[in-house]
């Protein structure tokens, strides 16, 4: 049972190794450019936030955003290509692998791609003068579950998409707003009390806050809430995504 998703994951890894450079640049380009443009560009204009320079403030959140983009784009555009143009899902379904195992394999793969972008981004932070604390290791599992969540969310979109343009709704109405309003670029606590609950209810917010705490070793008990919200969302969304993809595949 567990082997099915792993086989699908291995297949995607094999294909990815054929063109990994282009794929990685696609996943890392945006967050690193943001880090340079905003962090370095606004360095002198923005005062320190909670004792962090602006670049230090946004860096952990941008890591979280790299995972969101990496995972969600994989299971939308790329999974949709496998579903429709390449029809590789139909090939998989002729074998003992079930539709749900296939879906879980795709989610696992999307999460892996997201995590890979996130980890490379983390490793690159010292180049910008941001030195992550030892606690950052504890961040990695949270980032993995974030990847699972966004990969599953993307796969839900694939399960209901009728063409590539459909994903514009997803990126413009879900992914971009999350990128802008999940507390990557500004401290949520300084927002008005009407807006604050909305921002705290966004899924990416929890990862951004967890990332900032663990990156700089300033840990509060809230970390458990951030982690459990992320894990719960990941599991729930994965179950939903695998049911929805099955519905799309089995008529």
């Amino acid at each position, binding site marked *: 049972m567990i082997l099915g998703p792993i086989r699908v994951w291995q297949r995607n890894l*094999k294909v990815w190794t054929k*063109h990994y450079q282009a794929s990685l640049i696609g996943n890392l380009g945006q967050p690193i450019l943001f880090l340079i443009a905003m962090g370095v560009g606004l360095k002198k204009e923005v005062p320190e936030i909670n004792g962090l320079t602006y670049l230090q403030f946004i860096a952990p959140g941008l890591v979280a955003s790299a995972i969101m983009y990496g995972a969600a784009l994989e299971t939308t555009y790329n999974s949709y290509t496998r579903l429709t143009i390449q029809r*590789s899902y139909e*090939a998989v379904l002729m*074998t*003992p*692998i079930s539709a749900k195992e296939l879906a879980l394999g795709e989610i696992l793969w999307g999460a892996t791609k997201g995590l890979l972008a996130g980890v490379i981004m983390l490793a690159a932070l010292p180049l910008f003068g941001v030195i992550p604390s030892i606690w950052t290791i504890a961040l990695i599992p949270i980032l993995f579950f974030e990847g699972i969540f966004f990969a599953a969310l993307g796969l839900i979109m694939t399960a209901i998409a009728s063409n590539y343009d459909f994903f514009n709704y997803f990126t413009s109405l879900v992914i971009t707003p999350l990128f802008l309003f999940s507390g990557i670029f500004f401290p949520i606590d300084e927002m008005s009390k009407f807006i604050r609950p909305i921002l705290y209810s966004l899924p990416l917010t929890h990862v951004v806050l967890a990332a900032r705490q663990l990156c700089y070793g300033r840990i509060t008990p809230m970390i458990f809430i951030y982690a459990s919200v992320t894990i719960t969302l990941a599991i729930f969304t994965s179950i939903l995504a695998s049911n929805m993809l099955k519905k799309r*595949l089995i*008529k």
Partner: protein
Amino acid sequence: MQQQKAISKYEDKNSSISNNNSKILIVKKLKKVFGKRTAVNSISFSISKGQCLAILGPNGAGKTTTIHMLVGVVEKTAGTIEIFNRFVPDDLREIKKKVGVVPQIDNLDPDLTVIENLVIYASYFNIRKKIALERADELLHFFALYKRRKEVISNLSGGQRRRIILARALINKPELLILDEPTVGLDPQARLLIWERIERLKARGTTMLLTSHYMEEVSRLSDNLIILNRGKIIVEGNAHELIEKIIGPEVFELELSPNIKIEDLLEKFSQCDIAVDKSPQRLYIYPKDKERAKLVEKIIKEFPKWIRRPSNLEDVFLRLTGRKLRDI
């Protein structure tokens, strides 16, 4: 030697007694309804070990839907599917371990090489990589593709890809091979090569289910056939028997022109109990025996354009499903 003979005789006897157990696939009253459209309407058939059954039918007759139900990609509305004495969908995973499928569409991984495609597909069956590589090499030799093993799929021709899809379907050493229009869209050379390989597989005892609308393919490869039309089985049997029974040994074709009085002709043929089909341009005449054939020849000799030829499976097919193109 004699002892061995005796044993094999015993086995033969045994296998003919346990007739029911030698059925690889038994389908009973299988039905599929999509919304308001009944794609497959209560069909029953079975395949014995080592036999090839062909499902013939025009596009949209329900051939692919039937195959998709067998492998669980389409859920059946009613009926039972039994493969290797197990039931779909309950035992689908176990069943699929021993089934090979050649789909109608090309769904090879275009970015991967030939050998990578085969090894990855084998991994879906949890076949160890070393064994998968051995089998892949063997299969590529068999399909005359060994030299292409390191080639990326997108560089290959349609016929080569089709052979790889066949090789892929055999990587798990299936006990039942399902071929959904295996040579559709190929040129005659590529088609012949594939037929020849399928015949070799058949000679080795592979049980097969074949769908096709190439009559020559069906005549060559199948032991039995069913003709499906609008989701129903309209006839079943062996190709030669069906030709004999439904058409007779010969067919006359008469090209129609405005000055031919069709009604009179039809009247004459019906008086002699000779079956006739009419398409806008042609009259197809099916005399059952030599005497009637002589009569037909006598009647149509006066017209300028006609031919007399041996009947074939295509006549059976068109006689039963109609000579007109239909919208479905």
